[in-house]
């Protein structure tokens, strides 16, 4: 039944855990819509045939609806609509709150191309490799205008906003190649801004990762190498983070082995509860780390001087991402167990 309806309504095949639930609600909603509209159309036609005008001087009775009729006209649609809403909203919340253990990928949308940075893999342009059956979380940001990451087969879509992160998650079930489309109008190349999600079996994914790390495919660049962006994969994001920390002089004040220095140490910093100079406690997560790089004077850890310069304008999105990943990797027990960013209901900050 599901396949028949899916093909009847031209829905793309269901390649993620969301697809089936979304499509079931889809069938229920579309079939009721079809039933209601044909019902109204047929009643109108039947009334026309039954009560067509017999003579020009015909008079008609004055009929007022009874209150129960009006109540019915309100109750039935209200019941349907609120029913749809609660079914839909439960799914919406599930779809926009990534599970804790999902694997992160940083997505950068730029005028008419997608760039993907894996925490422990190479960077690639327009091609995203994903292990099947694994929860993937995409932290997305854009370099210029609003784009929108849309994979029809996964029933997944989220706008990619410039200047801030938006997140999305999916769990691809069937291996294969699926098109990424840009769904928010972004200029002349909006319709050719297409990428590809390649869902690999977990084993194939590991092999691909290993080969990337060994640099075997150093020369072969994923997807179509665009002229200005030929990028030899230079190790994964964590190594890039370490190199940036050295270049930008972070390591002059922040140590990575736990000893106290001008700035707080980065060892085990991620997911630590820092006590601030004004007494409040903050959970160290991506947002706090980004914020401290851009506006260090905002939150000073207790017992440290506000001497850190602001990196606003000096660090691009991916550099910030690389530093955050590097800090995340500095765990004393070297196993990253820290949960990813929780749902949007974190306590509202701000005076």
């Amino acid at each position, binding site marked *: 039944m599901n396949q028949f309806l899916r093909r009847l309504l031209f829905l793309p095949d269901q390649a993620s855990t969301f697809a089936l639930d979304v499509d079931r609600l889809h069938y229920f909603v579309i079939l009721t819509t079809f039933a209601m509209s044909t019902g109204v159309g047929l009643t109108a036609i039947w009334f026309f045939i039954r009560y067509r005008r017999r003579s020009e001087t015909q008079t008609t009775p004055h009929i007022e609806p009874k209150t129960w009729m009006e109540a019915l006209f309100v109750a039935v649609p209200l019941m349907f609509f609120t029913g749809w809403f609660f079914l839909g909203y439960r799914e919406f919340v599930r779809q926009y709150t990534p599970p804790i253990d999902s694997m992160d990928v940083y997505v950068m949308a730029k005028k008419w191309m997608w760039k993907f940075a894996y925490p422990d893999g190479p960077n690639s342009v327009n091609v995203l490799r994903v292990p099947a059956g694994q929860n993937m979380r995409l932290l997305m940001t854009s370099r210029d205008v609003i784009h929108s990451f849309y994979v029809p087969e996964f029933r997944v879509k989220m706008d990619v906003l410039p200047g801030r992160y938006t997140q999305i998650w999916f769990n691809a079930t069937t291996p294969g190649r699926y098109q990424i489309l840009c769904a928010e109008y972004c200029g002349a190349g909006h319709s050719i801004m297409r990428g590809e999600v390649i869902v690999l079996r977990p084993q194939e994914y590991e092999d691909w990762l290993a080969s990337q790390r060994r640099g075997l495919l150093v020369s072969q660049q994923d997807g179509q190498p665009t002229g200005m962006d030929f990028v030899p994969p230079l190790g994964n994001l964590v190594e890039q983070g370490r190199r940036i920390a050295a270049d930008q002089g972070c390591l002059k004040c922040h140590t990575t082995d736990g000893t106290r220095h001008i700035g707080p140490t980065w060892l085990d910093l991620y997911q630590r509860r820092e006590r601030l100079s004004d007494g409040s406690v903050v959970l160290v997560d991506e947002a706090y780390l980004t914020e401290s790089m*851009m*506006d260090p004077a905002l939150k000073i850890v207790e017992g440290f001087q506000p001497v850190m310069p*602001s990196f*606003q304008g000096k660090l691009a999105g991916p550099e910030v991402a690389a530093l955050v990943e590097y800090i995340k990797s500095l765990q004393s027990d070297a196993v990253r167990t820290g949960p990813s960013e929780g749902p949007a209901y974190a306590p509202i900050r*701000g005076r």
Partner: protein
Amino acid sequence: MSHEAEAGLPPGILAHHFSSLARQNEAMRLGMWLFLATEILLFAGLFTGYSVYRFQFPEAFAECSRHLELTLGTVNTVVLITSSLTVALAIHFARTDSPRAAAFCLVLTLLLALGFLGIKAVEYSEHFRERSLPGKYYAFEAVKTPGAAMFFTLYFIMTGIHGLHVIAGMLVLSWILRRTLQGRYSSRYYTGLELGGLYWHLVDLVWIFLYPLLYLI
């Protein structure tokens, strides 16, 4: 249609399709209030922008508002409130058949409005001097926190559009001043003057909200 009851009015006051002057006044007042509703919602857009960015950059907004000329802002508020009083008095004098006093009050209002614009000009020149300007022109040394430029963007857009409304109000009031001097308004018909007064009071109303939000917080 008995028009005798409305006799003794200057010609052309009562439109042909209104049954009585009271009804026409009622229509004009309702029309003006609807126009005021559109002005309120025009500023609603700006206040939404202000509240969103104030929520995102609380420290920058607090710090920047301390660098505004608070005394000039307060003087401006007093000037506008007084001009609201003089416009209200002008309507009062027109209703009690003393058009000369009404005209004098309108002149007072126009002078106060000019004073307001003058003070605003002084403030703007101060901002141009210390480079605390919106967006890409921002080069103000005293405040470096991110989001400061956004405060001055909102400051200039809100006070600028409010200034345009003050100028529009002055044009309306001077048009009404001319008609008052022509002796058009009396206790039987003063709606034109009242509508001008309503518009001026709205301009004052908007500044009553702008002043604390920009200068004090």
